[in-house]
C-alpha cells in the first residue's frame, strides 16, 4: 500500500477546469493527502515588455492595459506613475481622484469576480451566479464612466482621458447604495454558510511569518494578519489624503488565521472599503483640468525630451504591482520597461499553503491567492523544441547577453 500510494503523482494543468489560466502543478499525493508540489508557470508568456520597447510611450500604455483583463487599470496606473516620475510631469488633482475612483471600481469588480470563482471551485454554483449577477452593476458603472466594461483606457501620462460629468454622479451614488444594501447579504451568504466554512476554515493556511518571509502581497498577506497595503504604506495619487488603512480579518472581529476563509473575509471587507473610498472621492473631488498636456502629439514630444528613470507602484486588487521605466532623451520608446505583477510575489506562498492539504483543497487553495498568470509570466524557455529548466546563474547570463545584443541595436 505504502509504496504504491507514494508513487502517485497528479498533474493539474496547464489545462484544467480548476484553473482559469494556464499553469502546471504536479502534486505528489498519498491517498487524498498532498505531500509535495511542483509549480511550473510560463504558459501565458507573450513578451509584452519586449514589444513595449519598440513602441512609443502612448502605444505602450495600450499594451500595459492589455497585460491583464481584470487589472486593466492597475497596470496603466502604475505605468503612468513611473513615466510621470521619470519625466517630472505633474498630475492635476481632479485627474488623480478620477484615477482612484476607477481603480477602486476595478477592485470591487475584481473581488466580486474572485468570490464567484471561489464559490465555483467549492462546487457552490448558486453562489457563483449570485455574485456574478451583482457584479454586473459595477461593470455597468465602469462602462458608463469609461465607455468600456474592461480595458477602460482612462489613465494617460499627466492625467486621465475622460472626466466624470455631473449627470454621472447620481448613477455612481446609486451604485454605492446598491452595494451597501447588498453587503450584509453577501457577507452572510459567504461567511455564515456552513458548507463554505467547512471547506475553507483552516484550509491553505499561510502563517504571518511565512507571508513575511515569502514577500506575499495584497489580500494574501493581509489575510495572514500583515497590515500591508501600498495605499497605506507608500501613499500615491490622493490615497494619502483619504487615510486608507490596510484591512485584515481583525477588522471583521476575528483573529487572523491566514486560511482561505480569511482571504474571503478580507476581500469582502475591501469591497466595502472601496465603496467608501469612491463615495469620499465623489464628494471631495475638486473641479479643474484633467490632463497636464491634452494634445497627444505635444505629450509625445514632451516625453521624447525626458531623460531618467521612474518607478510606479499601485495596490492592484491582487496586491502590489510595480512598473519600472527608463527613458532616454531623443527616444520615443522606453529603453527599459519592467513589470512586476502581484501574482509573482504571491506564487511562492502556494508551497506552505498546499502542505498537508487534501486533493479536494487544491482548486480553492490555488484560487485563494487570486492568481493571474498572464500578468506574471515573464519567461518560457524552449530550446530546440524541448523545454528545459534554467537556474538563476544561467538565466542571469542569458539576460545579460540579450541586453548587450539589444544595446547594440540588433535585438
Amino acid at each position, binding site marked *: 500500500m505504502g509504496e504504491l500510494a507514494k508513487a502517485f503523482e497528479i498533474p493539474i494543468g496547464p489545462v484544467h477546469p480548476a484553473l482559469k489560466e494556464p499553469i502546471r502543478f504536479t502534486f505528489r499525493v498519498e491517498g*487524498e493527502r498532498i505531500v509535495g508540489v511542483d509549480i511550473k508557470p510560463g504558459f501565458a508568456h507573450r513578451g509584452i515588455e519586449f514589444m513595449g520597447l519598440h513602441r512609443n510611450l502612448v502605444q505602450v500604455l495600450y499594451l500595459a492595459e492589455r497585460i491583464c483583463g481584470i487589472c486593466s487599470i492597475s497596470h496603466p496606473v502604475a505605468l503612468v506613475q513611473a513615466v510621470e516620475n521619470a519625466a517630472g510631469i505633474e498630475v492635476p488633482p481632479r485627474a488623480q481622484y478620477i484615477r482612484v475612483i476607477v481603480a477602486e471600481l476595478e477592485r470591487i469588480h475584481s473581488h466580486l469576480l474572485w468570490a464567484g470563482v471561489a464559490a465555483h471551485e467549492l462546487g457552490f454554483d448558486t453562489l457563483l451566479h449570485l455574485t456574478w449577477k451583482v457584479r454586473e452593476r459595477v461593470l455597468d458603472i465602469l462602462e458608463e464612466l469609461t465607455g468600456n466594461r474592461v480595458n477602460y483606457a482612462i489613465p494617460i501620462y499627466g492625467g486621465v482621458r475622460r472626466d466624470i460629468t455631473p449627470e454621472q454622479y447620481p448613477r455612481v451614488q446609486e451604485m454605492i447604495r446598491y452595494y451597501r444594501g447588498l453587503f450584509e447579504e453577501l457577507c452572510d451568504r459567504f461567511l455564515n454558510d456552513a458548507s*463554505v466554512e467547512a471547506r475553507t476554515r483552516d484550509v491553505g493556511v499561510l502563517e504571518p511569518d511565512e507571508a513575511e518571509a515569502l514577500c506575499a502581497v495584497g489580500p494574501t498577506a493581509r489575510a495572514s494578519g500583515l497590515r500591508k497595503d501600498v495605499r497605506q504604506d507608500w501613499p500615491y495619487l490622493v490615497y494619502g489624503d483619504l487615510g486608507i488603512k490596510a484591512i485584515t480579518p481583525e477588522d471583521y472581529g476575528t483573529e487572523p488565521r491566514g486560511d482561505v476563509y480569511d482571504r474571503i473575509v478580507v476581500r469582502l471587507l475591501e469591497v466595502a472599503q472601496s465603496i467608501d473610498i469612491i463615495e469620499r472621492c465623489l464628494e471631495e473631488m475638486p473641479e479643474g483640468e484633467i490632463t497636464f498636456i491634452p494634445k497627444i502629439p505635444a505629450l509625445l514630444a514632451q516625453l521624447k525630451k525626458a531623460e531618467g528613470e521612474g518607478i510606479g507602484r499601485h495596490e492592484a486588487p491582487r496586491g502590489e504591482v510595480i512598473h519600472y521605466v527608463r527613458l532616454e532623451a531623443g527616444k520615443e520608446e522606453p529603453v527599459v520597461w519592467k513589470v512586476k505583477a502581484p501574482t509573482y510575489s504571491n506564487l511562492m506562498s502556494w508551497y506552505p499553503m498546499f502542505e498537508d492539504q487534501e486533493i479536494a483543497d487544491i482548486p480553492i487553495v490555488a484560487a485563494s491567492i487570486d492568481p493571474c498568470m498572464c500578468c506574471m509570466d515573464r519567461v518560457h524557455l524552449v530550446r530546440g523544441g524541448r523545454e528545459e529548466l534554467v537556474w538563476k546563474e544561467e538565466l542571469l547570463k542569458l539576460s545579460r547577453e540579450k541586453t548587450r545584443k539589444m544595446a547594440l541595436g540588433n535585438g
Partner: protein
Amino acid sequence: MSVLNALWQAILVLFGGTFLALVYKGIDRKLAAQMQGRIGPPIRQPFLDVGKLLVKETVVPRTAVRWAFNLMPFLALIAAGTVLLYLPIGPFRPVLSGYGDVIVVLYLLAVPAVAMALGGFASGSPFGVVGAQRELVMLMSYEFPLAVVVVALAWRVAGLGVGPAFSLATLAANPLWAQVGPLGVLGLVLLFLVLLVVTPAELSKIPFDIPEAETEIAGGLMVEYSGVNLALFYLADALKTVAMAALVVALFIPYGIAAPLGISGVGGQILDLAFFLVKVFCVMFAAVTTVRVAFARLKVDQIARGFWIPLTAVAAAGLLLLVLDKAVVG
C-alpha cells in the same frame, strides 16, 4: 404470469423508465437553473445529450484496461435498469416481484457505483483513480445508514405478519405510518430523513459529487469516458435517480389516491400511476434538485465522518424508537 407477459412488462418498464428518467433529468436541470438565476437548458436537453453522445467517437485511452473500461458502462446501466424491475410502479406490482427482495435492490443500487469505480480504475488516468477511490469511500459511507433504514422497516413489517417481510411489494402494500404508535411515527420520521440525506449521496450529486468533482479532478471517474460509454453512464445515472426516488416512495409514501377518491378500474390505475410519478418527482426535487443548489461540495473525509457517526446514530435512533414502539403497542 407467463414469461412472455413478464418480458413485455419489463420492456415497457425499462423504456418508459428511461424516457421518464431523461425527462426528469431535464426538469431537474431546468429547475436548478431557475433557482440559480439562470435560464437553463430546454427540458429535452438530456435527450439531445444522449443522442449526441451516441454518435460521438468512443475513445479508449492507451493506458486503460480495455475490456473492463468498456464493460463497466453496460454493467452500470443494466444494474440501474434492473432496479426498476424490482420496484412497485404506482398501482402495479414489481415486474420481478417474487424473484428477489429489498436486499437485492440494495445490492443492485450499489452495482453502478462499483462499476463506475472499476471503470475509473481501469481508465488508467490519475483523475480516474482518485475519483474511483472516492466513490468507494462514499459507497462505504452511505451503505450502512441505508441498510439500517431498510432493515428497520422490514423488521417492523415482519412483526405485522402480512407476508414476506423483505419483499418490496409487502413493504409498499403495508405503509407503516398507520400501524405504529407516536414513538414509531417519530422513528419513521427519523428514518425518512436519513433516507433523504442518503439519496443525493447515493446519486453522487452536490454536495456529495466528490467522485466527479469537476473543479477538483476534472470529472474524476468519468474523465476518460466518451461517446457511447459516456452515454450509457449518463443513462445509468438518470435511471438510478428515478429508481432511488421510487425506492423512497415505495418505502415511505406508497399511498395511492384512486381508492380514497373511489375511482377503480383502468381510470384509477392511470390516476395512481400519475400520482406515483408526481411523488417520485417530489422526492427527486426535495432530495436532489434543491440540495444541489443549496450547498458547496464537501470533502470525502467530511462525508465519511458525517455518515458513519451522526447519520448512522440518527438511523439507529429511528430503529430503536421502532423497537420501543413495538414493545409499547405490541
